[in-house]
Each structure stands twice: as C-alpha cells, then as structure tokens.
C-alpha cells in the first residue's frame, strides 16, 4: 500500500486528485490507499448496478445506483476498485465520467486478472497484485454480503458435500 501511495503521489505531485471508489468492495482498499497517499486528495464514491441473470438484452443496462457528489470537471480522477477482471465495469465508468470533462482519468486496483479481459482500452495505471483466477473473501470481498469485514483477503475453496 505504501508503494502504491508513493507511486500515485509522485505521479500527481502538485495536483489534487479525486479518488473515486466503486462500491462496495473497494471500501477497505480505498481507506488504506487514502491514508497511504501523502498528497491532498478528495474522496467520493459511485455504485453501479451489476449484471445479473435478470438482465436481458434490450431491457436492462448498467446504471448508477450511487453517483458522485463532487464535480469532476477539470479535475484528475483516480478510479479505485478492488479487482479488475473483465474490465467492463471500469470501461463503463471511464466512458461515463469522461463525459463530465475531467482533466484526466486513471485507475488503481488492488487485484488484477488481466487474462480475463473482455475490453482492453483501460487506464489501469496502478495495480497491487496480479492474482490467479480464484474467489476471495475478506478485505471488502464478500460472499453473499458476508465476510467483507475480515481484515485479510482469504482464498475461497468450494467443497462438494455429500447429502
């Protein structure tokens, strides 16, 4: 976290970026990153409706459930997410927020799964770790909204139980 904070601080020297967290899993990461960032910065959040089995072409589309309170026109936006895999959420966020006239948009993620990308043109500039294709819980990662509160990241193993 210190390394990420130092790298971001170096790149944004003499600027005051807005850290935009994508709820909900990002909360612990964003909090730690913010504390590791020794430059002035603002913090704000968005939440997007995730894709689910009810979504069918032509009827549903990704949308903001929670939008920014801050105006980002002319500001440097740093999107903060816990993990980037397909890149579709980050792609949508970049496209949407770029319409608001920011000075720049970049992204930071704790975990990256680049081998699962469906879209490539992402400004993912800061990555904590490239991780294997596994499920995680804790440090913001949930299983049905549980376990986010665990202080560490845990690997989730599925066990087939006999009935």
């Amino acid at each position: 976290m210190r390394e990420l904070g130092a790298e971001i601080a170096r790149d944004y020297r003499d600027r005051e970026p807005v850290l935009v967290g994508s709820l909900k899993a990002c909360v612990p990461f964003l909090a730690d990153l913010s504390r590791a960032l020794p430059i002035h910065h603002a913090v704000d959040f968005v939440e997007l409706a995730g894709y689910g089995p009810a979504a069918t072409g032509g009827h549903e589309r990704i949308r903001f459930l929670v939008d920014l309170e801050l105006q980002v026109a002319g500001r440097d936006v740093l999107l903060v997410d816990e993990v980037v895999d397909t890149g579709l959420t980050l792609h949508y966020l970049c496209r949407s927020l770029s319409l608001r006239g920011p000075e720049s948009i970049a992204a930071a993620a704790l975990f990256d799964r680049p081998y699962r990308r469906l879209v490539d043109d992402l400004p993912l500039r800061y990555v904590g770790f490239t991780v294997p294709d596994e499920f995680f819980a804790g440090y913001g990662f949930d299983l049905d909204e549980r376990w986010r509160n665990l202080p560490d990241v845990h690997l989730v193993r599925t066990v087939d139980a006999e009935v």
Partner: protein
Amino acid sequence: MAPETPTFQAYRGEEPPRFANEAELEYAKILDYYGVPWLYEPHTFVLERDADGRVVEAFTPDFYLPEQDLYLEVTVMRQSLVTRKNRKLRRLRRLYPDVKIKLFYERDFERIAARYGLRKAS
C-alpha cells in the same frame, strides 16, 4: 434448439444475430449490458486456399468489438475440438498478425457465469 435472441442496444450489426449456443448469447448480453458496441460474426478470415483459389479453411470469430478493434471467440467445446480451434487461431495470428483476437474457453464462461449468477451453458 437455437437460443433466444433478445433485442440488443449495443449491437451494431444489421441482421439479428443467430447464436450457436447459450454461452455466446450470455457473452452478447453482458457486452450489451455494459454498453460495449459489438458485432456478431462480421468477418471471415481465409486460412487456406487450394490450387484453384477455393477456400478450404476459414475462421469466423464470434464477436467483434469495433471500438477496440478486437475479436472474441467463445468456445464451449470438448478438449479435442478446442485443440483444433487453437490450431486455427494460431494460423490466423500468423497470417493476420495485426488482428487482435481473444479466445474464451468453457472455464472462462464458468467463471463469468459464477460471478454473475448465470446458468452454465449446456
């Protein structure tokens, strides 16, 4: 039976897409949900011609994302057929080095299905 064909918003083709399997349909729905413009099987790449110039082998990737100039190939085949498809893909990359293409295997779809709560492709 051919999968359903919903009305798509980010589809940039003219004719309604006719998907070969449920996995292709689900990938199309996901791309559409996130507003990523896509086309279905818009281009066929010739891999081999015979002495008379007739096409004897070709490859048609499932999706094309025009904004990213990227092709996606989705496969839910058994391993022996995947091996054959991998060979075609290597050939395509050799003959068309500027074409960007990604191959998604059944396990990739299983991961995406698990993440989004979708049914697994049959």
